[in-house]
């Protein structure tokens, strides 16, 4: 006698689904459900948070958020940050990866050294950086003093906030990006370089016509993940500026705005609306990147 269930288990698709189920449940509960829930919550205009009863819905929250000067400032700050941090981070990582991929001594040591910031928690890095940048006792100003320059009020000058955040994020993400790019570089068959040399390609020509195109999958991956990551910047600001959004709100980012609305002002619906807008922005950037980088069919 055959039991039908047994047949299901023999079906490869069904078995694969079973293996995928646990992860799917967790991701579904903690990732997908909140997305839909916050999207829905963004429309609540009158509601009781504790009992989850909604009396009125509407676009008010979205309109409020989009008109809120703080949100616009947060959006501006975040966009400037993303615009510099993501490409610069990849560019610098690429330079380091290419150097590390050439025949230099202590390769493994360098790789580990660059990777350390990535495995260190953002909180401790931010604390260390806030001490380095301390106006009176910081390493940065001590160094400037040796060089005979004036002190800089790193953490209290509003013009310094975004550059510092960019530098911090590049430095922190460097190791991870280098590892990804190194793996990509090492995946490029040496034969292509030999062939290109025989075809008369000089060093920079080989870089642009062989290395970059063949590294594209890694670069696209990094560009998408680092843009998403950059849009979500929060911990660095929160810790380095002692729970404040930087001098004159110069470090106010979207996630900080959401955090502020949610935990400090208890404006859950506004926070949800802002979170959903952030989700849309990230989605848009990601889709755009896919559209621009996916292989196009060549026209005649």
């Amino acid at each position: 006698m055959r039991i039908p269930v047994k047949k299901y288990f023999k079906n490869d698709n069904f078995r694969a689904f079973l293996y995928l189920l646990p992860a799917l449940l967790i991701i579904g509960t903690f990732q997908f459900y909140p997305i839909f829930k916050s999207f829905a919550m963004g429309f609540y205009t009158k509601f009781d948070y504790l009992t989850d009863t909604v009396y009125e819905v509407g676009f008010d929250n979205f309109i409020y958020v989009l008109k809120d000067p703080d949100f616009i400032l947060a959006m501006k700050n975040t966009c400037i940050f993303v615009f510099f941090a993501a490409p610069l981070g990849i560019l610098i990582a690429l330079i380091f990866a290419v150097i590390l991929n050439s025949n230099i001594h202590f390769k493994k040591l360098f790789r580990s050294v660059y990777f350390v910031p990535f495995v260190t928690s953002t909180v401790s890095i931010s604390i260390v950086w806030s001490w380095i940048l301390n106006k009176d006792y910081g390493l940065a100003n001590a160094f400037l003093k040796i060089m005979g320059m004036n002190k800089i009020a790193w953490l209290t000058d509003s013009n310094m906030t975004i550059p510092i955040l960019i530098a911090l994020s590049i430095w922190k993400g460097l190791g991870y990006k280098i590892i990804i790019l190194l793996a990509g570089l090492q995946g490029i068959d040496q034969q292509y370089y030999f062939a290109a040399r025989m075809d008369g390609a000089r060093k920079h020509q080989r870089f642009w016509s062989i290395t970059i195109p063949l590294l594209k999958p890694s670069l696209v991956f990094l560009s998408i993940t680092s843009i998403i990551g950059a849009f979500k910047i929060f911990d660095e600001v929160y810790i380095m500026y002692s729970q404040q959004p930087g001098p004159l709100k110069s470090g106010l980012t979207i996630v900080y705005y959401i955090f502020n609305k949610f935990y400090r002002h208890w404006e859950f619906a506004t926070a949800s609306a802002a979170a959903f807008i952030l989700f849309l922005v990230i989605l848009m950037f990601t889709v755009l990147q896919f559209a621009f980088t996916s292989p196009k069919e060549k026209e005649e």
Partner: protein
Amino acid sequence: MNIKLENVSKQFKNVLAVDHLNIEISDGELICLLGPSGCGKSTTLSMIAGLEKPSEGAIHFDGENVNEVEAEHRDIGMVFQNYALYPHMTVLENIMFPLKMRKYKKSVMIEKALKVAELMQIIELKNRKPSQLSGGQQQRVAIGRALVKEPKILLLDEPLSNLDARLRIELRDEIRNLQRKLKITTIFVTHDQEEAMSISDKILLMNKGISQQYSSPKEMYREPNNQFVAGFLGNPPMNFLPGYYDVAVKQLYMQENGESVLIPWDKPQTMVGLPKGEVIIGIRPEDLYIVQERGVLMGEIKSIQTLGKEIYIRIDICGVLVTACVSWDHTYHVKERVHLGIKKIHVFAR
């Protein structure tokens, strides 16, 4: 272009890959670098290409020392064993690549590339990516890419070893015809002796980084310099018998298990360093033939292997197994005692 290697050596960490190599290749010749794997043939090719620098010695192109000229400036076309087509470019873009690096005008590039594609019969594949091509097609593209810049030298590094037997023969003849037509100095690396014999003007046979013989295929087969050359060329391989040359009476004997058999050797030894005392006698399987009686050698048939056009017979002569390659006109049996005649013998120092 005339290529000359003068005392060229290549030392890798603790291996001497190429050991004081001296060869000269005339303009328009097709040379095969032949040898077992690890004999230094690919390293030699890399040094000519400029991808490796010789540790010692000099490489001359048309009398000019090119040791310090980088590969990208040597103007050499090269075809690699695994084709090394750029995976992100189409067939046409691959072929155009060398021209693009030389900053040709786009219209000229396309015109030249199409012409080469036509020559290689790959014109209908021009918009495909390498991953959409078969091995043979990829190799045609690779040859096209090597030829498009009209180089003076063409290097081929085991270009046919990844292809199936039939295609290999087809492409090999094509390469030969193309080479004759374009009169381009060509160096072809292979470990396949048949390939080397069939297409080259001259063969350089190498072993352990040392040149063993550099001559025409015929000469290499008929007059091998040493036992290695003799044993490397020919299928089935040459039979080697222990022998003794008595200088006093000028006679050659085969010696094994205490027995001595006189081997008539009419040809006075022309080899330099006339072998004295113990020698190796080499006889090609096709130079052994079976006679009714009074053969030079006598032995017992151990096994018979029938092939399409001929039969290989393994014969035990005083404990030494030799292979004879005979025709079908007689039926032989295992354990039969036969007399053998010898057409031609080679003698090597032991």
